[in-house]
């Protein structure tokens, strides 16, 4: 573990950090070393304590024990600002920017270019524009950040941290909502920064990315340090074993000969369904026991399609049918009533009710479906929550914990549990594996298949094409808010999907793989 060949003091040195939240020991005696000019991956399962470590180091949470040294000197930042001033810039896991401020203000908050005590708005916008161009983003920097998609917000957050020109840059799951093209750009920038001697901490659940970019890896498990390795000398299997503490069941085999099976019954169908300015009219058939994948670039209209299908958005034309009977889907309640479920992509704002317990979050949709007058008894609630906590391995396995205190991945599982509890006939999953660790990722994909075998119809959105290919029976490709292509059976592979996405000349450059 110790690298005695290295003479200079490490850039960032963390020794014996511990942190508890009440009874939960999130970190126990963790060490971590970051050298100048390296890209260091911090890995671990959901809830392993990665984000907590980052927050403790940057002073967001007070620490119970341990020391942090920066360039050999002990530092004890007591706020994010203090950490910044000490030279540690951080992009925290959930996008932590302000949707109400303009993009430019977000980039330069608290460090705007000034003259005579007055913010130089024009200069700030010019710089913002230039900064984002480096990240391949050409947007109106005067518009409120909230107008833009999560992906753009994430890029903005990264750009801000990068531009702070600190000595240490910490990125907590920066790539979770980015597509390949943007990831490429980010990696390019990260390499440049590393060359300049900046140390970078990189958290991700995408192991491909970890192998592509990182020099060394530190693994945490259950709040404890498992080990620190050179990336080059660590095999994937070994890494997964370090993270999970066990072997991972093989998951990557293609879906068993879906085309062999007899065609299933149609669960829900949409004809000429659409909403002007939102997504162009489309035809879509969802069958029991079938997974339909939605693929496309950021902003291609996948989420919009999902919202229309579920009923979260009102269509202005077209006909929806459930089990052959025409229905009106005007609100989420309609969707729920017809046995639909929807896990939205923005889990913090659209998914969880942070203050309520895991149990309450899980039973919420079922309760809403049953109506006010048929409350689930406490016993039923406990039973349901207990079942799903176990089934999805939600950690910590305490149904009475406010869901907001769970790690991101575990929140995602709780959301999934919410809909499974309603025994839906159609489940719409928007980026269900975002921010989920390898173990859970495999779990969720296995679950998707099982559900499907039980007759559930699934509509799944994912930016990870490999993943889509793995479980989809059909893939609908979207471009510019229109459904442009449907692939089925043998035709489903990454190349074909990319070809469909890129068929349009304008999108060509996006498709560099």
């Amino acid at each position, binding site marked *: 573990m110790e690298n005695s060949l290295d003479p200079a003091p490490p850039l960032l040195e963390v020794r014996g950090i511990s942190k508890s*939240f*009440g009874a939960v020991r999130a970190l126990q005696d963790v060490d971590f070393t970051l050298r100048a000019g390296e890209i260091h991956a911090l890995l671990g399962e959901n809830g392993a304590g990665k984000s907590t470590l980052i927050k403790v180091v940057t002073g967001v949470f007070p620490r119970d024990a341990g020391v942090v040294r920066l360039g050999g000197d002990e530092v004890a930042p007591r706020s994010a600002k203090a950490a910044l001033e000490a030279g540690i810039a951080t992009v925290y896991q959930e996008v932590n920017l302000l*949707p109400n401020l303009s993009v430019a203000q977000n980039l330069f908050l608290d460090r705007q270019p000034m003259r005579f005590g007055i913010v130089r708005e024009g200069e700030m916008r010019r710089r913002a524009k230039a900064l984002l161009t480096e990240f391949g983003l050409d947007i109106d920097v005067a518009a409120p950040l909230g107008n833009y998609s999560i992906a753009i917000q994430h890029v903005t957050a990264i750009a801000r941290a990068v531009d702070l020109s600190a000595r240490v840059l910490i990125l907590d799951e920066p790539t979770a909502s980015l597509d390949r093209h943007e990831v490429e750009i980010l990696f390019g920038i990260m390499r440049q920064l590393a060359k300049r001697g900046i140390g970078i901490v990189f958290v991700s659940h995408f192991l491909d990315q970890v192998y592509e970019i990182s020099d060394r890896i530190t693994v945490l498990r259950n709040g404890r340090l498992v080990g620190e390795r050179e990336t080059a000398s660590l095999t994937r299997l070994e890494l997964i074993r370090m993270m999970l503490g066990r072997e991972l069941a093989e998951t990557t085999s293609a879906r068993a000969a879906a085309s062999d099976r007899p065609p299933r019954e149609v669960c829900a169908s949409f004809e000429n369904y659409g909403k002007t300015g939102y997504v162009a009219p489309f035809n879509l058939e969802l069958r029991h026991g079938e997974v339909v994948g939605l693929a496309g670039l950021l902003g291609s209209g996948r989420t919009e399609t999902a919202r229309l299908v*579920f009923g*979260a958005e009102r269509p202005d034309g077209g006909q929806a049918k459930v089990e052959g009977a025409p229905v009106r889907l005007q*609100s*989420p*309640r309609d*969707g*729920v*009533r017809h046995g639909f479920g*929807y896990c*939205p992509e923005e889990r*913090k*704002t*659209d*998914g*969880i*009710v*942070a*203050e*309520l317990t895991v149990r*309450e979050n899980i*039973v*919420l*949709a079922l*309760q*809403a*479906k*049953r*109506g*006010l*007058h*048929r*409350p*689930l008894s406490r016993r039923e609630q406990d039973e349901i929550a207990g079942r799903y906590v176990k089934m999805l391995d939600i950690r910590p396995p305490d149904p009475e914990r*406010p869901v*907001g*205190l769970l790690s991101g991945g575990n929140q995602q599982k709780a959301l999934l549990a*919410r809909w499974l509890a309603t025994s839906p006939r159609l489940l719409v999953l928007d980026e269900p594996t975002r921010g989920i660790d390898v173990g859970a990722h495999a779990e969720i994909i296995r679950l998707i298949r099982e559900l499907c075998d039980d007759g559930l119809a699934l509509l799944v959105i994912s930016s990870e094409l490999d993943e889509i290919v793995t479980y989809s029976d059909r893939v609908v490709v979207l471009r510019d808010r229109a459904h442009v292509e449907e692939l089925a059976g043998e035709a489903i592979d990454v190349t074909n999907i990319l070809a469909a996405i890129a068929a349009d000349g304008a999108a060509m450059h996006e498709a560099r793989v």
Partner: protein
Amino acid sequence: MTMLLPRRGLAQILALIVILAVDRVVSPQFFDLRLQDGRLFGSLIDVLNRGTPVALLSLGMVLVIATRGIDLSVGAVMAICGAIAASLADSHSLPVVLAAALGAGLLCGLWNGFLVAVLGMQPIVATLILMVAGRGIAQLITEGRIVTFTSPDLVWLGNGAILGVPVPIAIALGMLILTGAVVRGSALGLLIEATGGNARASELAGVGTRAMILAVYVWCGVCAALAGVIAAADIMGADANNAGLWLELDAILAVVIGGTSLFGGRFSLVLAVLGALIIQTMNTGILLSGYPPEFNLLVKAVVVLAVLLLQSPKLSGFAGIMARLRRTKP
């Protein structure tokens, strides 16, 4: 929930005990109780009795606040409903009078709920409208005078007793139990908390958030109506100019002292009522103390601050975690 209650309520119970002890010091006969004309009599009873209007208001208010709303109009609604009850009391039977007054409160609540849930106005301005206009409506009903009545039925609501317990106290207790039964006995409580905690997410989970919001304002209106009727019955007249004046602030204060966040989500009915009692215990203590009235507000300010600090998240463990969680929400 039942398990959490004592832990959550500890600060409030402690505060109440301290204030009661102070009251005992300023007024040695504070805990004396006796039966007077078949009715319990004593300072403690005064606290409960005088506390009923705010306790009733806070029962409705706590639900509104749980949905991240606020209702400034409750004082005015009290005045309206008191005025209606008083004007009808001598010509109609009690059920009719009550139905009219509570119906009016329901309509007021519906109006507020409509503005908030359907038109999407910010609760504080939406209810400010009725706060201003409502008192006018009440005065219109009474034409600015104090409308008195003699109907023994209505008077009984204010001054009567059931097994020695003054009727207002019994009504407040009944409403607490009723509200608790409705809210916790059905799924309403959960759905309200979900709506207040994250309306967008709840909507997507199939919760009828608009219906929830409408419902809580309606209930708040009904509670205010009842408080108004009791206030009128108490003085055997409807004083539209002053009934319920500034009580909305006391009700909000009671809810917050009861530990419910103004940002919605988790709520506790019992603690909100306890909050109302804390306020009234303090008020009665001030009256008994014999200090000149110039000091009233200062004492009130100091006590309120002290009670708040007592339950400050920074000073207690469990609440601290909750608050941290709240802060991390956008």
